[in-house]
């Protein structure tokens, strides 16, 4: 039997088959279905319409609902949508719901999922959000779906999927101190384009990847969708298992299966990167593949800096930003949004020197918002950090499409937390090598 990639193995297991290959259409059993406040109400509507007003979800243990998008807003419709989730959770008696306004509130679903023990190697995770691919960092198959698919899964626990061929991105060498996973994935997307991985899996491999911590691995997988990828994934190692095992008790210590690509697995594309030769990059407006070396756009004037989201709002991201902002003052309004409440607590407890990260940010003149998706995708007009006017912003988020962060004519540059922090101090695009030895 020919070798299989990690993605193929996980899909084969979920389809109860010995083997699958690229372009096979299969029905898979789903391990976790995740939805949130933007797509949950529509998903619940589809579920009730097709399975009946009194239907039960296929497995209460496998449905996870995480309100995160439009939380701290006066928008009545947005708040109504959270009520829809709340009512459904009560009616179905779902154990994994992280309600707004309670101590159980978490924030951005893609970061809350692993924190709360819902990401496990070898599983199928489907979510009504394109960045569900983030969880591929745990050696599982994770991808975004729409409301109709999610409504179908909610009632049946199954979905048809087409097995994607796998692209392999290998990183060798030691990560220089001025580079982050965000630079690596923006470089990949710049290389292959926003449609370069359409209908394909993106596997990240090599000693450079396995030297990254779990949060940085999540950043790599998170932006697979920005190249059109169906999923991103990284084989589990001890780093993965240590994280997963430390979180498992929050979700019932479910068993999982560790899988890796076979040595003779077939890849449709392979690209090797030498980390020592890579440079900090940005994606210029208005596309994540509009790559430029920071050194080539240095000095571009900015109006705002934004550090947050599933892509750039984790502890590793804030640690890197704080190291640069420590003892300095920002020149442009700078918005800090922790992805989750756990990260927000981390900002209050973790220190560099004698100051907490929170103190470093506040002393530098930055504003800190509550954990949520916030301005990454614009949202209601009162959203923290939203670009309500056509200004220029450098951001650690994942998309710079026209209008994505609010105003249709706003200019958004995507960059690593280090590059964003360095630029916040000068008000122009700044190379983090100027700040990081």
């Amino acid at each position, binding site marked *: 039997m020919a070798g299989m990639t990690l993605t193929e193995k996980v899909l084969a297991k979920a389809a109860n088959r010995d083997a699958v290959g690229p372009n096979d259409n299969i029905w898979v059993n789903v391990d976790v279905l995740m939805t949130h406040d933007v797509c949950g109400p529509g998903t619940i509507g589809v579920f009730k319409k097709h399975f009946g007003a009194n239907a039960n979800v296929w497995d209460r243990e496998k449905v996870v609902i995480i309100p995160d998008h439009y939380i701290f807003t006066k928008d009545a*419709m947005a708040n109504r949508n959270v009520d829809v989730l709340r009512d459904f959770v009560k009616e179905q008696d779902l154990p994994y719901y992280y309600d707004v306004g309670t101590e159980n509130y978490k924030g951005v679903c893609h970061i809350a999922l692993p924190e709360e023990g819902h990401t496990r190697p070898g599983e199928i995770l489907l979510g009504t959000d394109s960045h569900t691919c983030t969880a591929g960092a745990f050696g599982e198959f994770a991808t975004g779906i*729409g409301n109709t698919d999610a409504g*179908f899964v909610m009632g049946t626990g199954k979905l048809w999927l087409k097995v994607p061929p796998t692209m392999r991105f290998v990183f060798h060498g030691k990560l220089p101190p001025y580079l982050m996973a965000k630079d690596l994935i923006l470089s990949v997307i710049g290389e292959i384009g926003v449609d370069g991985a359409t209908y394909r899996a993106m596997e990240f491999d090599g000693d450079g990847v396995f030297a990254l911590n779990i949060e940085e691995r999540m950043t790599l997988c998170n932006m697979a969708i920005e190249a059109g990828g169906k999923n991103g994934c990284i084989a589990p190692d001890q780093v993965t298992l240590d994280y997963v095992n430390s979180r498992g008790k929050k979700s019932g210590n479910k068993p999982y299966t560790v899988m890796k690509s076979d040595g003779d697995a077939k890849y449709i594309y392979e690209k090797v990167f030498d980390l020592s030769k890579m440079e900090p990059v940005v994606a210029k407006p208005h596309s994540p593949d509009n790559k430029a070396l920071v050194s080539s756009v240095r000095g571009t004037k900015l109006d705002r800096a934004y550090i947050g989201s599933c892509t750039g709002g984790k502890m590793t991201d804030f640690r890197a930003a704080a190291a640069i902002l420590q003892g300095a003052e920002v020149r442009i309004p700078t918005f800090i949004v922790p992805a989750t409440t756990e990260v927000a607590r981390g900002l209050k407890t973790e220190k560099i020197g004698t100051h907490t990260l929170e103190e470093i940010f506040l002393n530098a003149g930055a504003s800190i918002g509550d954990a949520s998706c916030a301005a990454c995708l614009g949202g209601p007009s009162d959203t923290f950090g939203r670009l309500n006017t056509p200004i220029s912003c450098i951001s650690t988020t994942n998309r710079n499409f026209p209008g994505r962060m609010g105003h249709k004519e706003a200019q958004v540059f995507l960059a690593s937390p280090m590059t964003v922090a360095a630029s916040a101090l000068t008000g122009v695009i700044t190379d983090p090598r100027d700040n990081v030895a």
Partner: protein
Amino acid sequence: MRASGNRTEKDEKMEKIIKGKAFVLGDNVDTDQIIPAQYLTYNPSIPAEYKMFGKFALSSVPPGQMGLPKGHQAFHTDDEFVSPFTIIVAGKNFGCGSSREHAPIALAAAGIKAVVCEFYARIFYRNSVNGSYLVPVECQTRLINDIATGDELTIDLENHTLTNHTTKDTWKLQDLGEVAPIIEAGGIFEYAKKVGMLKS
């Protein structure tokens, strides 16, 4: 034009011939352009809110890209909820970005019955097929330089052809392939009933 907001009344079978005016867009039209995030607070399962998606469809497409080749064309003219255009013609990677099903819903609510482009972003394609909002067709060559906004088109899904009545051109379209049975059934639920996975 399909009644907006009540998909239960629509025909179970796919329309084989789709006729109407073209609205032409460029490459990489993402779902934030198709329906900006601020309108995602409407719940598409509620008919009165469903029609709002038609009103705001394509509202974040940069003005210069709206209705090629000229650009700066209005997608809605007399009716603010429904567009006079029936078919979107676009370049490559239509529907990239966010998984929001509100994107094909917005186009369908505005009266769009089919999109013709070089290829689709995966989630938009799935949502269009599984939710049966519109027919996503792939062309064999790039057509956005050969079709102008307002041209009268006919898509023949049985013979896989696209005719531009304004310029008198006809092109072959790609076969719908493996998703044809789902499109013909009227979405994933109807398909699952047909093949016995779900009770009718």
